[in-house]
């Protein structure tokens, strides 16, 4: 299958590809290439194939979001740390117990191919034809970075056939984890305004997050000069799909607390406590080529209000609104009465192969379970002892220790998610 987008890569990309191509030829025979040979090499893209790639911060290596000014009004200061970030291979189904810091019960797979030579990560310049912000239908150049595609051939091994899962041993099964420390600091501490990390600590919460057995297949990240205000534009198709046995876990109970800020000794988390979400799928369309870019601007310009001079240092991130132009909103909104191919292509679910034409997404959770530190499944709601038995019996406190059906508080499905307009403005100063 060849796609023809009238590809004209910019000189830099062409030169880079040329350089690569020369390297490729040179490694084989180190002979000069004639013009005819060069003509066969054109800028169709650069492919990346990570093999068994794993990234792991040690338990005490961290990324910190440093508060540098007091937030607006009476809000206290947040000092955030992400420790021990790991992105590795998924381990066997269901093994999502243990804790990330002691590694007790926490395992990762050593074999972890992300894609294949047939389905690699791909950097491409393309000029797909689509609606611009002004409503014109036109080709427009975009720099795309594709994760491996979701393919029907990549049914998750071990999953049920036809369960809508596009994963395979060849194509993913990732595990992601970190432990976090959120420190709340008192804004009224004397003299701390110029360096809020010195504000007195009020409270803190440490947690661990683990997501086992998901893929990023079908995702795409794009940068371009946007057609809204001709500035820098971004969009991405965010697809994080769990295997049917994949689990996301968030837990807070510790058997040993962390020491120090930043930590000089890592905490040890309960092996079993936490919030468990099975089979979580996130398919979100953030921005649509070419009429809805994500843009970056000075907050003062966007808000268009008189502000103190320091306010101008804030950043505004805006997913621009869908313009009131029939061709554009006609392309954006889904006509649920119609089942034509272009209308169906506007939906991106966990079972969709190609979401590049989608404007609507889906958020889905298989089931949600709570477990107490003893390993029992517990509820946020405890049944009062004087309540007669009856229909409410499904609200039990299950102390059986096993993760039974009783522990399941339900599942979630949000279909047709779309973002008409979104704006995030920092208020640090």
């Amino acid at each position, binding site marked *: *299958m*060849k796609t023809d987008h009238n590809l004209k890569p910019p000189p830099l990309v062409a030169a880079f*590809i040329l350089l*690569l191509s*020369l*390297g*490729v030829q*040179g*490694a*084989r*025979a*180190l002979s*000069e290439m004639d013009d005819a040979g060069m003509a066969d*090499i*054109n800028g*169709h*893209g*650069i*492919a*990346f*194939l*990570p*093999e*068994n*790639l*794993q990234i*792991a*911060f*040690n338990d*005490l*290596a*961290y*990324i*910190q*979001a*440093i508060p*540098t*000014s007091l937030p607006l009004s009476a809000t206290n200061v947040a000092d955030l740390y992400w420790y021990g970030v790991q992105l590795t291979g998924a381990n066997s189904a269901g093994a999502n117990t243990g804790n990330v810091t002691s590694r007790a019960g926490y395992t990762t797979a050593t074999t*972890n191919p992300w894609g294949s*030579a*047939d389905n*690699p990560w*791909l950097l*491409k310049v393309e000029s797909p034809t689509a609606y611009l912000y002004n409503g014109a239908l036109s080709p427009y150049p975009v720099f795309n970075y*594709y994760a491996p595609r979701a393919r029907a051939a990549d049914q998750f091994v071990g999953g049920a056939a036809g369960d809508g899962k596009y994963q395979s041993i060849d194509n993913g099964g990732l595990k992601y984890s970190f432990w976090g420390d959120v420190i709340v600091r008192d804004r009224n501490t004397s003299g701390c305004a110029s360096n809020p990390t010195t504000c007195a600590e009020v409270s803190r919460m440490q947690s661990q997050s683990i997501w086992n057995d998901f893929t990023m297949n079908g995702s795409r990240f794009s940068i371009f000069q946007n057609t809204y*205000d*001709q*500035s820098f534009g971004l969009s991405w198709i965010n697809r994080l799909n769990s295997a049917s046995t994949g689990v996301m876990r968030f837990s807070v109970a510790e058997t040993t607390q962390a020491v120090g800020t*930043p930590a000089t000794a890592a905490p040890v988390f309960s092996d079993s406590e936490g919030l468990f979400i099975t089979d979580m799928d996130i398919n979100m369309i953030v921005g649509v080529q070419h009429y809805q870019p994500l843009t*970056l601007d*000075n907050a003062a310009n966007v808000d268009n209000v008189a502000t103190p001079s*320091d306010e*101008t*240092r*804030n*950043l505004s991130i805006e997913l621009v609104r869908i313009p009131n132009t029939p061709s554009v909103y006609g392309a954006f909104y889904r006509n649920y009465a119609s089942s034509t191919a272009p209308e169906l292509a506007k939906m991106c679910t966990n079972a969709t192969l190609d979401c590049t034409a989608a404007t609507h997404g889906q958020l889905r959770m298989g089931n949600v379970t709570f477990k107490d530190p003893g390993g029992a499944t517990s509820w946020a709601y405890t049944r009062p002892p004087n309540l007669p038995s009856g229909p409410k019996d499904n609200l039990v406190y299950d102390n059986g220790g096993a993760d039974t059906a009783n522990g399941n508080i339900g599942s979630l499905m949000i279909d047709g998610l779309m973002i008409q307009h979104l704006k995030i403005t*920092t*208020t*640090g*100063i």
Partner: protein
Amino acid sequence: MSRLYALLFLLLAASARADMLSMDNESLAKITGQDGIGLALEWRLNADANGVSKCGVSIPLLECRIALSFNNRGTAGSNQEWLVLKGISGRVVIPYLALDASTVTYSNDSDAPATIAAARFGFDPNNPIRIQNFVIANIGMETDNSTTPGYMAASAGGYMGLKIDDSNSVSTVTTPFVGIQLTGSVKMFPCNADHKLC
């Protein structure tokens, strides 16, 4: 052609390690995907050998900056906007990065196997990457005025900073490792016209 010469030099260097005999083209053609190059990289930005920032110490604060200006965000000398990373410093050590030649085989448009060369970057988990005190003290939007470009604005203000560091010290290596462990490799190859995705 200078790129070819550079490549030639690299290959000669690799072959020279075996012994110092000259090689003809035929022999050179057989050298593919053998011993690659091992690299050790150390990168210091406004920092000393321990990653301690020199910003505001021996380097003026205004010179510890990286600024980005997106297209069509104001006019230079008037109101051009800059996203300014202020007080940026740190040390990054990559003790081992292997660079060698490899191949990939894909099924082409005719469903025939096609094997092409690929550059391969390999990492060693026993030589983890160390990021010491990599700090962006503050990030803020600044605007040009008639006298000062935004990226030279005197203010150290902004809305947040970022830091990557490690509470372990290099001299007290604790389990399982210090720093950031990368395992595995990444192959890079051209997506040719006969690839199904290109």
